[in-house]
């Protein structure tokens, strides 16, 4: 076991300090009333029980009004500018995303993002489903990191229902989340290379190498859950699949191999063409990042030291000494650096925790068999966890359809949507090539943006 101490900067509740691996419900109980009053359909909605302590030491946003475009007054009419509809079908928008660019030559004057092409009504759909049905649906939201999606929604259900998660499941969830983070960042690095280097060139080489590594992680998950991509392995109260024999060794082999190759990717950051394309490009300063609600690597690359894994530990993050990487520049290069460094840290944590998997049951509840078996109490809860893209929040109001087994409302706060909000502020002044690099460095997943 590496370190069993709480990181100094983390605001931790008394319950969490007493027992570092306190169940979610206890943390929740210490911050808000447990029993809400009345079903949400009639009467006022009861106050939110936060499953984590809110962070208070963020930099305050001054009277900060970001300016979304260059000075348009110097342009006489729209006829001066060429509009270019980047997307919804464009190789570099990472899905069906549309940005309308107003161009003066190759310089962008104004950029207007139009998300929504991948809207599937997931949140509405969830109002008809039970927790066990919701998990595989939420998998498809952020289809690059399904593990963390499942965890977010199941943690919300656990928190609302007051279900305790066994220690073994908490450790396993941490391992899965961190391994998923490596896979997700690898996919990001590959597609970022494609954005910078083209589909018929060096970018594809980087893409292929990253996918080669990512395949190993998918093999690992397949070995555990039977699925390569949409796992459906988390359930209310724990995990559905326990670790098979030989799995920790397989994880060590896989992550060790990836760890060795990470040096090459870090070296690539110093390549003259890579630095020329990314340094000083798409600078998001800390004020703008906080104003727009950026989280995750984007926020950390802008110089704000914020990571939910350390600041509001869930799973078994309180058990490890997590290093958080912060870069001050806020440009595409800083974002790349933060992500690649994070991969190494995730590999380290996974390898420590998988060696220290505590014995015991993997799940504290029986599988759901029929409607109404697990009733959601009519309260509401917000759970935010740190996915590879940032804070993925699930706001859950209980007491919905199916005799109270379905949520009355399920709202997902997706980090990618907030990342897309940066586009009107950062793209103006850049060239078209820079716009592609910036879009790539934001790492949005459209399934999560549009839901």
């Amino acid at each position, binding site marked *: 076991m590496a370190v069993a101490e709480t990181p100094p900067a983390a605001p931790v509740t008394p319950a969490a300090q007493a027992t570092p691996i306190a169940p979610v419900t206890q943390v929740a109980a210490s911050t808000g009333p447990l029993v809400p009053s009345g079903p949400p359909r009639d009467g006022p909605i009861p106050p939110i029980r936060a499953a984590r302590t809110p962070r208070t030491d963020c930099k305050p946003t001054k009277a900060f009004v970001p300016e979304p475009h260059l000075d348009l007054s110097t342009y006489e009419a729209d006829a001066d500018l060429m509009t270019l509809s980047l997307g919804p079908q464009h190789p570099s928008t990472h899905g069906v995303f549309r940005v309308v660019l107003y161009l003066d030559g*190759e310089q962008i004057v104004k950029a207007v993002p139009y998300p929504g092409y991948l809207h599937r009504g997931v949140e509405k759909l969830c109002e008809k489903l039970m927790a066990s049905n919701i998990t595989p649906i939420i998998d498809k939201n952020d289809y690059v990191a399904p593990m963390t999606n499942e965890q977010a929604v199941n943690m919300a259900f656990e928190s609302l229902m007051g279900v305790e998660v066994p220690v073994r499941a908490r450790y396993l969830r941490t391992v899965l989340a961190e391994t998923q983070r490596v896979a997700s960042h690898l996919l990001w690095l590959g597609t970022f290379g494609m954005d910078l280097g083209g589909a018929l060139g060096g970018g594809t080489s980087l893409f292929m190498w990253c996918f080669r590594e990512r395949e190993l992680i998918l093999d690992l998950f397949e070995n555990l859950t039977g699925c390569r991509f949409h796992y459906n392995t988390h359930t209310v109260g724990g995990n559905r699949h326990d670790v098979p024999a030989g799995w920790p060794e397989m994880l060590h082999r896989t992550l060790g191999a990836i760890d060795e190759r990470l040096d090459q990717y870090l070296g690539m950051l110093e390549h003259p*063409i890579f630095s020329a394309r990314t340094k000083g490009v798409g600078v998001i300063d800390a004020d703008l990042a906080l104003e727009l609600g950026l989280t995750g690597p984007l926020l950390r690359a802008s110089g704000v030291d914020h990571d939910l894994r350390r600041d509001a530990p869930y799973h078994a993050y309180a058990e490890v000494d997590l290093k958080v990487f912060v870069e001050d520049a806020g440009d595409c290069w800083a974002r790349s650096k933060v992500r690649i460094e994070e991969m190494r840290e995730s590999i380290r944590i996974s390898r420590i925790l998988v060696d220290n998997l505590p014995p015991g049951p993997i799940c504290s509840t029986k599988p759901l068999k029929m409607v109404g078996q697990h009733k959601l109490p009519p309260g509401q809860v917000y759970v935010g966890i740190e996915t590879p893209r940032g804070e993925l929040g699930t706001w859950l109001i209980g007491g919905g359809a199916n005799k109270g087994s379905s949520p009355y409302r399920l709202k997902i706060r997706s980090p990618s949507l907030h990342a897309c909000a940066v586009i009107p502020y950062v793209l103006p002044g850049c060239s078209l090539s*820079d716009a592609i690099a910036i879009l790539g460095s934001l790492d949005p997943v459209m399934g999560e943006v549009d839901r």
Partner: protein
Amino acid sequence: MNEALELLANPWIHGFVFGAVIVTALMSVTAYITWFERKFAARLHSRMGPTMVGPKGLLQPIADGLKMIQKEDIVPRDADRLLFNAAPAITLFFALAVAAVIPFSPGLLASNLDIGVLYALAVSGLMGFPVWVGAWASNNKYALFGGMRAVAQAISYEIPMVLSALVPVVLAGSLSIGQIVEYQIEHGWFAFWPPGPGIFAFVLFMLTALAEGNRIPFDIPEAESELVAGPTTEYTGIKFGLFASAEYIHSLLASALGAALFLGGWDGPFGIPVFWMLLKTCMLFVGVTWIRWTLLRFRSDQLMALCWVYLVPGALGLLLITGLYVHVRG
């Protein structure tokens, strides 16, 4: 037999026969170069590359060609139909026309022009313009951007390319590629002898040839991730294929030109001359391919800055040094 040789002495018949031979050979070589490049890139990526069509995927280029011919030929409604259809053919014409002056061996060249170097550079420089015509005619904003970048790049990089190609011309005192090669056989390859300007001019020439051929890291006109497919965005089927093969032929002939101007052409220690010429060309092309599948892409303004700030003054300096050397040597 003698009658046939006499017939060949007629310049029209000579040109036609050699032209047919060289064009046929080039087109089939180009087809197999795509196979080679796919295999090569696959090895870099730890993949297999084409394996299904024929042994080792050797029939893949033929399958590709058939597929492209079968594809629907789409002309956008608002496109300039005449220019849109003419542009791919003109591009391929300019790409192939360079081959007329490449000496593959003492006897195997279509036309031994006195101004071979000038002709080759001029014709390959013209290749940027039908691309622009096609981009303009297809009435698409991405194509417009691509065509604009293509012309800007062609104009800019033409200058250091010509300046670096002038170094062997000054050294050999001739504009005929055949005579430049013979001078090298006599005095040593320009890439190595005289030590100094030759090797720099060679590197500069290959670098600008990469840019002229729209190869990564200078492929900003096509820039798939930004401009979808650049000037060829609206082209389908075999018309796209003509653009693509023109690009390959351009790279291949630029490698051949580099081999002839700087690496002694058909000069070799033993065996038949044409073998050495082809070997050097292939080695240079492998280098070009390797660079393509390794590097990322520059931004367009960085590309222009590289050209005008570093390459053009550097090439001028090289030419000055070469001139001084020739003057001192007498």
